[in-house]
């Protein structure tokens, strides 16, 4: 049993799972916004990055880790809400290229402003748990208290988001607003507020992801570009899973993380992005609307 748990295969699966849940979280936040507003938010990595700086750098040294997490979450909710209300709302119903250009521009602005305020030097985040791998029979297991915290947090967030949508009144209204905004308004649902809430929620999911990937001891730390690479893989996962399917996005993210880890270990680290893009192209050729999107599933 012991040799198996410390084997190269299990090690790659655990390492891949850790990365995969973060891709899944980014993909989930992209899907949340796409489903509710039909916008591909290219600033989905930059907005939470900015909120993480507010929580962890502005208040560094004054508050403990969990208080910084709380402030980052509040900042993310505020940034998500304000972005929807003042930047995005005027873009609904406009040609698809308009929101893409605006959100790419917003990404560049946020990264530039963060660099101007906090510099591009990586800032290390405090660690709530040890980042050193556990050992089993003297051999390292590719699992540390921090990576376990990372995986569990991501799973809890995903389950909470799924439960919110499936079992609560608010979730029913959020889904209705996304699927049939006019009918929802005729039933008294305040669709405008719910769209704002959807952006807040997506940015909060994003900030938790950013905090996880910027911490952990072996991470290079928080930088204005910290989410760029993860955003790319999250975007690929969302496209593979299907932009209409939150569950599909999460599963695709996790699978992509594991595949990447195997490619990195058995082939070459430079081949990782190539393989990810090949997987994307092949999956889109076979299922253009995404692996997990039902053909009948679309906005009303």
């Amino acid at each position, binding site marked *: 049993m012991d040799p198996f748990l410390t084997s190269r295969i299990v090690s790659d699966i655990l390492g891949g799972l850790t990365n995969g849940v973060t891709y899944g979280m980014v993909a989930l936040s992209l899907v949340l916004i796409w489903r509710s507003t039909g916008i591909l938010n290219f600033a989905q990595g930059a907005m939470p990055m900015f909120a993480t700086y507010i929580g962890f750098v502005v208040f560094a040294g004054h508050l403990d880790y969990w208080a910084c997490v709380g402030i980052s979450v509040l900042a993310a909710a505020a940034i998500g809400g304000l972005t929807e209300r003042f930047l995005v709302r005027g873009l609904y119903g406009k040609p698809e290229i308009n929101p893409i250009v605006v959100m790419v521009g917003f990404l560049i602005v946020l990264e530039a402003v963060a660099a101007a305020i906090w510099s591009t030097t990586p800032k290390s985040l405090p660690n709530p748990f040890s980042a050193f791998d556990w050992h089993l029979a003297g051999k390292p297991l590719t699992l540390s208290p921090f990576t376990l915290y990372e995986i569990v947090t991501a799973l809890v967030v995903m389950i909470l988001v799924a439960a919110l949508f499936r079992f609560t009144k608010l979730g029913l209204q959020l889904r209705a607003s996304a699927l049939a905004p006019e009918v929802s308004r005729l039933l008294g*649902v305040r669709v405008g507020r719910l769209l704002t809430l959807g952006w807040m929620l997506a940015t909060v999911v994003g900030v938790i992801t950013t905090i996880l990937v910027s911490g952990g001891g072996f991470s290079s730390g928080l930088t204005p570009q910290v989410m760029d690479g993860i955003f790319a893989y999250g975007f690929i996962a969302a496209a593979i899973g299907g932009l209409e399917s939150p569950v599909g996005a999460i599963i695709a993210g996790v699978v992509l993380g594991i595949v990447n880890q195997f490619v990195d270990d058995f082939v070459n680290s430079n081949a990782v992005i190539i393989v990810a893009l090949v997987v994307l192209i092949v999956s889109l050729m076979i299922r253009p609307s995404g692996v997990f999107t039902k053909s009948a599933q679309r906005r009303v």
Partner: protein
Amino acid sequence: MITIDDLTVSFGAVQALRHVSFVAETGKITAVLGANGAGKTTLLRTISGLKEPKTGTIRMDERSLVGKRTEDIARLGIGHVPEGRGVIGEFTVEENLRLGAMMAKVNLQRGLEEQYVQFPVLGERRKQHAAKLSGGERQMLAMARALIAKPSVLLLDEPSLGLAPLVTAQLMHTIQALCETSDLTVILVEQNARSALRIAHHAVVLHVGKAVANDTAENVAADDNLRQYYLGLVE
């Protein structure tokens, strides 16, 4: 009671409604009839705040509705069953009904039971996705979703569209029964003038945005000119 006075609605240079006035009385069915493009759907959309009028007033009892947001108008107790029914196909029957009940201060369980008694087929299919229902069942669901909120006014846009004659007759009977058992005010937009006039108390006939008749349903049904030129009812 809904009072519409001198209502004009435009789409750019095109006037969809021109100086339309009528009263839909409490507990009565007011049929709004006319051919395609007469302005019937625009009238309902304007009452619900989905379209802003150019001039004129719309009042629910003494309260003005013009300028209010659609969701606020719905919360005042105006249920609108749009053309094409507007049920959410990805939702189950019960989720559609829960959504309808959400904004009203009604007991959800009691509301669901009432609607399942009123429309038994919905009770049998409560866990089924609305996309899998037949046209008639979807119409029933759309009606039940509006009724579960206990509205005081119900706007029905072409409820018989695409339905078999027998289903249409059942539907009209249901609307009539609802009006008789409560103080529900119904504005019924229909192309199927014959069915609508059979149950309506009052009728307004629109022609290219103008009200060419505003009288009791009985008088409209008996007017040969209206029947022949505007309603296409030739014996």
